[in-house]
């Protein structure tokens, strides 16, 4: 940081000195400006993350020296404009614009500021099912003093060793979030039972002396635990952008363009991970941010009679300079410290990609990428204010991919190719009317990419049986943006009178996605606006737009499971076991025999969900009243109404934003401004809640 400050100071001096020879050479040059130096202090009480979120001076409790500079110099053929402000090493900005003899233009800017990032405390994620000890005490009558408790017998295995305790219970009213045994069951006689294994790895299959034939149901031990490993760590990011561009006129009709942009993001951010198939153990730690985006632009503009041609090449590199954070995930099926965790006790190993066995593995990975683009534009200025413009854009983005624990990829890069062809015609058939017709054809294509997600235990018949390789091998990645897009539009501007202008427009867009399951989106847009003046003191503008979107991007199987047998929005095991929904409880499943999330639930969801609207109405109204040179008042209203009415679900959202502002200058020495704005937004939608045990 200290070296950065010296570098920046040296650069600042160079930038300040650079225009001087140019100005000295121009005898007509006149300049105005100011230089200010001083001291600044900031004192922050409590949390700085919101009260000083975007800091352009001092990010935290501190004091220091600041400097400001402003320069505006112009001669007959040369101009220089400079604005700069410098605080500490993480807060500075300047903009420089030099025009020399109208043949060379140099623009340079630098911005650096600090952003405080949020710190999720993860202290609201604690929930769990207690061990069976509390339930055992309740069933034995120890909680309610003087009660005898329910009849019980030791459960033994074939060797006569005790593996747990079985209670005969009249009902399950005692079962609540504080009293949960390992199993509940129903005997052939109709008697209800509860069973607590003596150790976590004993189950009902080990019971050799049941009082009768019992059908058991295992109670899931679902739990959720949030843990912040770095509770006192501040998270922040310093964002820096340095831009330079040169335009050099090499011949009277050809100008070359060079540009360079360097963006850096450095700091420390929170990184959150979750272990699965144990408790849902969510942990937060810190990770370094050290990212760099570098753009290089080369181009040329040539004017050849009626024809103007413009070309630009862009090369962009995104680099992640820091290593990915590491996490040792919890052993699966180990919410209880007494669980005998071994690689042989691999209940979930045919469903998990990694757990404790994998050791420290990277997560929260930021891949590097490259982009190259070519933009070619041609403009033909014909007679009668007729302009024909054509454009071609070719871009290629490569994103790096690599094998990781639990995932193998078939190639090290995903390449996305974009080609766009545009044509625009601007005509003025009569003096009062200007028309703009445009069309664009675009194509996005991502290279074929597949990946495999082999679970830890591909050959083990643990929970749910031996996994089918077809479910985790060579999975094809589909890109929702791949496809062909056609856009056609027409805009018109018509002067109704000296003070009134009418604008109208229509646009049709069709996006044919390569991945047909996501649909083909058609969008039609109509716009209308009127701008006018009433007398000399009142101006007004009214605008309305309507968009109709057919098949917006959506997930066709987003929510709402429907049982294929019963038609109910939940899985009813009564129907599965007795064949009828009779309201009589039938004991459910044990680990290894229950339904699977993927094939038995997720694949059977029927609701098509999207956060994108199918229709949008937007109204904008504004009017300004200026009765005198010292007073102006503006009222404005914006209303937006969005709606989606998909097959299985629908939502709507309304937004209103009225505002009023005044400007008043009672004397030449006093200026007053006032603004009030209200934003009200109401969204109405369905809510789907998953509900299951385990």
């Amino acid at each position, binding site marked *: 940081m200290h070296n950065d400050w010296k570098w920046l100071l040296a650069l600042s001096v160079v930038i300040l000195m650079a225009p001087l020879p140019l100005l000295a050479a121009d005898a007509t040059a006149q300049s105005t400006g100011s230089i200010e130096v*001083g001291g600044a202090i*900031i004192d922050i009480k409590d*949390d700085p993350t919101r*009260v000083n979120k975007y800091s352009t001076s001092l990010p935290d409790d501190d004091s220091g020296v600041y400097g400001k500079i402003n320069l505006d110099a112009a001669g007959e053929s040369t101009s220089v404009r400079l604005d700069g402000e410098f605080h500490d090493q993480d807060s500075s900005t300047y903009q420089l614009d030099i025009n020399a003899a109208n043949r060379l233009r140099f623009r340079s800017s630098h911005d650096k500021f600090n952003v405080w990032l*949020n710190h999720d405390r993860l202290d609201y994620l604690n929930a769990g099912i207690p061990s069976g000890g509390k339930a055992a005490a309740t069933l034995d009558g120890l909680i309610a003093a003087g009660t005898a408790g329910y009849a019980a017998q030791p459960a033994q295995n074939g060797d006569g060793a005790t593996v747990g305790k079985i209670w005969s219970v009249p009902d399950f*009213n005692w079962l609540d979030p504080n009293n949960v045994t390992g199993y509940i069951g129903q005997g052939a006689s109709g008697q209800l039972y509860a069973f607590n294994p003596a150790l976590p790895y004993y189950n009902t299959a080990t019971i050799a002396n049941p009082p009768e034939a019992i059908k058991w149901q295992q109670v899931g031990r679902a739990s959720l635990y949030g843990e912040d490993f770095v509770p006192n760590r501040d998270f922040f990011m310093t964002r820096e952008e340095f831009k330079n561009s040169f335009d050099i006129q090499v011949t009277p009709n050809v100008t070359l363009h060079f540009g360079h942009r360097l963006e850096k993001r450095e700091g420390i951010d929170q990184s959150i991970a979750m272990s699965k198939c144990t408790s849902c153990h969510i942990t937060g730690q810190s990770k370094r941010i050290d990212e760099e985006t570098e753009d290089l632009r080369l181009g040329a503009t040539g004017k050849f009679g009626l024809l103007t041609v413009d070309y630009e090449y862009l090369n962009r590199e995104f680099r992640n300079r820091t290593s990915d954070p590491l996490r040792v995930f919890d052993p699966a099926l180990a919410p209880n410290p007494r669980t005998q965790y071994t690689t042989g006790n691999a209940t979930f190993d045919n469903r998990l990609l990694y757990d404790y066995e994998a050791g420290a593995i990277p997560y929260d990975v930021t891949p590097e990428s490259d982009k190259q683009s070519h933009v070619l534009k041609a403009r033909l200025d014909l007679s009668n204010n007729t302009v024909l413009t054509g454009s071609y854009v070719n871009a290629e983005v490569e994103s790096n991919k690599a094998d990781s624990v639990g995932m193998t990829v078939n190639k090290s890069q995903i390449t996305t190719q974009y080609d766009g062809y545009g044509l625009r015609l601007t005509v003025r058939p009569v003096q009062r009317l200007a028309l703009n017709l445009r069309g664009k054809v675009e194509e996005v294509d991502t290279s074929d990419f597949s990946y495999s997600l082999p679970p830890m235990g591909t050959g083990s018949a643990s929970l749910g049986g031996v996994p089918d390789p077809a479910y985790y091998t060579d999975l094809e990645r589909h890109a929702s943006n791949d496809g062909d897009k056609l856009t056609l539009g027409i805009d018109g501007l018509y002067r109704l009178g000296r003070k009134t202008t009418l604008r109208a427009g229509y646009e049709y867009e069709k996006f044919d996605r390569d991945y047909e399951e996501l649909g083909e989106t058609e969008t039609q847009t109509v716009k209308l606006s009127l701008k006018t003046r009433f007398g000399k003191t009142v101006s007004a503008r009214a605008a309305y737009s309507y968009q109709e979107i057919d098949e917006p991007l959506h997930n066709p199987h987003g929510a709402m499971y429907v049982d294929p047998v019963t038609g109910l929005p939940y899985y009813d095991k009564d129907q599965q076991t007795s064949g009828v929904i009779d*309201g009589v409880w039938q004991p459910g499943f044990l680990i290894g025999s229950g339904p699977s999330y993927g094939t038995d639930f997720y694949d059977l969801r029927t609701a098509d969900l999207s956060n994108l609207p199918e229709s949008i109405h937007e109204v904008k109204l504004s009017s300004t009243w200026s009765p005198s040179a010292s007073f102006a008042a503006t009222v404005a209203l914006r209303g937006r109404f969005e709606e989606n009415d998909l097959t299985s679900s629908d939502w709507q959202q309304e937004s209103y934003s009225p505002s009023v502002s005044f400007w008043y200058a009672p004397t*030449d020495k006093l200026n007053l*401004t006032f603004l009030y704005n209200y934003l009200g937004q109401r969204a109405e939608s369905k809510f789907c809640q998953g*509900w299951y045990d385990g």
Partner: protein
Amino acid sequence: MTDYQTDVHTLSLNADYQATEQFGLNAGLMFSDAKAEWSGLSLQTPANVNDPVLTNIYSLEATNVITSYSELHYRQLEASLGGTYQFTPALYVAASVGYVMFDDRSPYVYGDQDGDAYRGSLGLGYRF
């Protein structure tokens, strides 16, 4: 169906006053009140669900309290006062003070983000 309602009020006042030929003042005041809440969630146990594990341990009705977790309410106040005194047409002194208050009235995920910031600066300038 559930509703998510957002209400944001923003008020801003600014003044520039050239008290004398040498002395100019500027002042600003901004206040905003932003509130969001989720309402109308009424989950109910479906008919015929009689599994004691689901009905006794995982109460669907109790899930309705999650709406309270989504309540947000922020109040923010920013006030500033600055002045410039011109010793000569070229030489001036500039000073400013500022205060920012952030009141997190429904802290949750990120903890209590209440904060106050006091700023001050004093500088000497030269116009040319």
